[in-house]
Every structure is written in structure tokens, then in C-alpha cells.
């Protein structure tokens, strides 16, 4: 892929941009939709029977390993649940079968089954209170207006919390970021360690940089929700736990707001750690 492909809602994706090598089915990420082509009068073998169109404006990205395509959306703040997204939800109230949670503050509540946790049975299910945070996966979004969105903290096939870390988030702090930033963070954190690139994955080096610098104070845990929330916890940090958490939050929100390039991100991390008086 030579130059980034910028798409507007309704744009068709040219077939030369799609990964062609793999035999596995193509996976569609958020912001893309499969439309069936109206049967043309002269069906030829060269034109595919379906077209992919964008439903959001953004940059088209491909992931050759997973054979997936998605749209890196602009930093908007409105989140629309898409199946398989990881989100940070806040429990609003519970009913006998479900926890009713908030994913987007002013949108209808989503439901999370009382037993949709790793190893949960009727007797051992987690007792979540109002205001507790849960890291969960979107299981289904339903069809049409008013459909209920369902979350889960467990893979129904294996009974395990997959990927790891799903479930109740205790302690820590949540910072608000834009949806676009959340996507970039997820790509950056899932790819870190596997391939070291000079300017990081998705133009983000902040997590690697913070990880290196905060290693001495005990490292940190991070959970990124597609709904524009990042949960950060440095409970191993001892005396500087609070300061380190605030520093991470400030780094992430500043980079999001000012759209910093990798070199500036490194400078920002050093500057904020110095300002917060964290020894590294």
C-alpha cells in the first residue's frame, strides 16, 4: 500500500487495496460494510459479486496477518457499539439476570449477563455495585432501533476470559480520550514487542516510552476501551502510584488533543514525568 486511502461514508473500496494473498475469509472491522452488488447486465468473471463501502470517514487500514480491514476513524467522541469491540463499561444497576451498564454516558444502557464472567456460576458470580467498572467485549448489537447491546466478559466457546484481563476493573483511574485515539492505542499495545518500528505502530510510541521509563517504579496496567476510555493502574508503584497514574493519563490526553508526532511524544513523556517529580 503506497499512499493512505482516505474514505468518506459511502465510498467504495477499490479492490486493489484489499489483501488478496490469504485464503482465509476477509474480516471486516468497524466502519466498513459489505454490500451486495446489484446484478449487472453483463456479469463478467473479473468483477466481484460484492462491494465494500465505508460507513465512516477515515483512513483505510489493513492487517495482513489477521486478513482484516478496518477504518481508522477520525478523533470523534461518539461511540457506536460494534461486535467484538473491547469497551470499558460502568455498572448502573443490576437486575436478577443482568447488570445494566453504561458504555456511552447519554445512550441507552447495555446489558451484561450476571454469569458472563470467567468461572461464574449462580453461587460464585461477581457482586458488582453501582459505579463499578468492567472491561468487556461486545457480544451482540441487535438489529434496528432500540435493540439491546449485550456485553460479555468471557468467550462463550471456551469459558475463559479471552483476551486476558476481561472482567471487573478495581482501583486505578479512567481517562477520557477520543475514539480514534483508543483505536490507535489498541493497535499500538497489541503490536508492541512483536515488531519494533522506528515511529511505533499507528504513530504512537507513548506506551513503549512510558513502559521503559516507569519500569523502575513497578510498571503499570492499562486497559483501552473502544468507547473512548482508558483505565490505568499503577498499584505496584508504592509512593508514586498516584503520580505515575496521573502522568500516564496526562500523556495520553495531551497526545490525543494535540495530535503529537512520535518525537514530540517522547519529549512530552519526559517533560511530564519531570513535572510530576517521578524519578526514572
Amino acid at each position, binding site marked *: 500500500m503506497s499512499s493512505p486511502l482516505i474514505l468518506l461514508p459511502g465510498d467504495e473500496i477499490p479492490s486493489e487495496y484489499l489483501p488478496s494473498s490469504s485464503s482465509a475469509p476477509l474480516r471486516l472491522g468497524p466502519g466498513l460494510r459489505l454490500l451486495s452488488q446489484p446484478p449487472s447486465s453483463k456479469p463478467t468473471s473479473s468483477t466481484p459479486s460484492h462491494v465494500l463501502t465505508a460507513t465512516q470517514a477515515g483512513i483505510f487500514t489493513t492487517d495482513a496477518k489477521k486478513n482484516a480491514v478496518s477504518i481508522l476513524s477520525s478523533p470523534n467522541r461518539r461511540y457506536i457499539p460494534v461486535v467484538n469491540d473491547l469497551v470499558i463499561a*460502568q455498572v448502573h444497576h443490576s437486575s436478577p439476570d443482568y447488570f445494566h451498564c*453504561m458504555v456511552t*454516558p*447519554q*445512550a*441507552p444502557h447495555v446489558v451484561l449477563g450476571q454469569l458472563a464472567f470467567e468461572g461464574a456460576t449462580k453461587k460464585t458470580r461477581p457482586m458488582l*455495585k453501582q*459505579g*463499578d*467498572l468492567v472491561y468487556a467485549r461486545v457480544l451482540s448489537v441487535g438489529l434496528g432501533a432500540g435493540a439491546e447491546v449485550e456485553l460479555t466478559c468471557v468467550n462463550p466457546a471456551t469459558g475463559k476470559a479471552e483476551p486476558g484481563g476481561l472482567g471487573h*476493573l*478495581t*482501583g*486505578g*483511574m*479512567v481517562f477520557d480520550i477520543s475514539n480514534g485515539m483508543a483505536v490507535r492505542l489498541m493497535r499500538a499495545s497489541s503490536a508492541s514487542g512483536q515488531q519494533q518500528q522506528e515511529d511505533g505502530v499507528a504513530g504512537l510510541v507513548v506506551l513503549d516510552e512510558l513502559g521503559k521509563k516507569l519500569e523502575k517504579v513497578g510498571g503499570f496496567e492499562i486497559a483501552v476501551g473502544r468507547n473512548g476510555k482508558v*483505565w490505568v493502574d499503577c498499584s505496584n508503584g508504592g509512593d508514586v502510584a*498516584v*503520580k505515575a*497514574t*496521573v*502522568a500516564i*493519563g*496526562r500523556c495520553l490526553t495531551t497526545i490525543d488533543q494535540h495530535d503529537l508526532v512520535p518525537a514530540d511524544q517522547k519529549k512530552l513523556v519526559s517533560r*511530564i514525568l519531570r*513535572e*510530576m517529580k517521578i524519578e526514572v
Partner: protein
Amino acid sequence: MNKEAPLSISERDFILNALREDVRLDGRAADQLRPLNVTFGEEYGHVKVQLGRTSLIVRISAEVTKPHDDRPFDGLFTIAMELTAMGSPAWDNGRQGDLETYVTNVLDRVVRHSNALDTESLCIVKGVSCWSIRADVHITDYDGNLIDAACIGIMAGLQHFRRQDAVVKDGQVIVYGLDERVPVALNITHKPLSITFHTFDEGKKVILDATRKEEQASEADVVIGLNNAGDVCFMSKFSGSGVDAMVFVDKTSVALEKVKEINAIIDKALQADLSKRAKTGMLEESRAENDRQPELEV
């Protein structure tokens, strides 16, 4: 669904624990304002205030009306503020929430009841006509501390605004257009501003200019309104838990410092805008065509 989303337990606990260590989420000190930016639009009395991520637009306008019967010498001054869905998804259009009532009330007290704008100077003909000054506040983004931001906007707007000149001739009121006569500045008696504090941890921690999350986690708020001379014109603690009396005494001096700081920022912005206007205005007037125009008509 017109409700501010409540904070999660983690966020509430963390904000409190951090404040116990004197750390705020954006790295500010307890008595530090967020970056404040005041800019003026093309027309007189059009102000944009940006306080951190809270931003609003204030528009001052004037029209000639009849004064109230019981106060024939006074002009009118109203502050109109509506929290619309433009500012935050938590607000509904046309439905008044608690926050709106509260903020409107405080603004009324700080700016209007302290006589910041001399309403007697707005009188044109006793009991017949006077100027009615209206300040419209539009919130464009909300991240806490609406009161102070709105107060800054209104005061900057009043100082920036120029009303049309009006003259009484043979019992007739003649209002000259902005291009016919030099417009008149409003008569500002003093420049009061409000400073809002929020208390945490049973009143032991007091912070200034809270963000939305900090506001939600706080126990109570204290609003102090005062001017550059240190005259306190408003003080309130409407709801929430109790606050020690010494907080009021201590924080009034902090507030005075901040009022001076903010007024200096407003003054600087006003000066910059004035000099910009003087430059462009002179160019427009001193054009050669302007001199020749009357001769053409003869």
C-alpha cells in the same frame, strides 16, 4: 437521559486519593487556573472564552425600550443563559436543570446585583425610553466551572461592547448608526468576577477551578465574587457538606489574587483588540474616496 453520567467508584476514589497527595488530574496546583483565553469577535460585545476545555460565547446586545414603571431612571440589564445540547449531551434543549438555575442565579448576583453595569447611565428619557442591555451566554463545550467562565465572558463583553449613540431632540429620540457616530462604551462601575472553589475530604482539601470530574467528586462548592479592590460582593455555599469558616477567610485572599490575574488577562485582550480596531478603522476612514463622496452628490 438528560443526566450527567455519574462517576465510577474508581474515579471518585482516585481523585480523592490524589488530592490527599496534592496531585490533580491535569497536574495543576490546588490554586491554579486552567489556561484562560479571551478573544473578541468582529462585532462589539462578542466574546469567546476558553477556560481549559470549557468554552463559551457571550454576545452583548442593546435595544431601546421603555423602562420599568417603578424605576423610571434605570435602564434594563438581563443575563440570558440556557444550557443547550450544544454544550454537553447531558443537557436537553428547553428544559431547565438544577445547574442552569444555579449558574443563572449566581451570575445574576455577582454581575447584576453588584451594579457592575451602571443602569442609570442607560436612561435616555425619564420613564419613556432607555437602553436594554442583554448578555446572551452560549456554552459550546463543558468541562466544569461554568460559573467563573460565564462571569469572565460577561464582564469582558460588557467592557468590549459599544452601544449606538442616542440623542434626544425636541422630545424625539434619535439613534445614530455605528457608522454615523462614534459608538459609546458602557459605564462599568467595577469589575467583579466569581471564583469557585470545591472542597474534598471533609473540607480539608480546597481546590480552585475544578474540571467536570473534580466537580462531580467534590463534597461542596464555595463561590466568592469580588472585584479588583477586594470588595466581596457575593459569597455562597448553597449545598453539600459543611465548610469551615476559615476556608472562606483564607480563600477570599486567594480569590482576590485570581480576580486580579483574570482581570489583567481581560485587559490585555481588550487592549490588543482595541489597537487592532484602531488600525483597521483609521484605514477605512482615511481613504481618499471618502473625502470626495460629498462633492459627487452636489
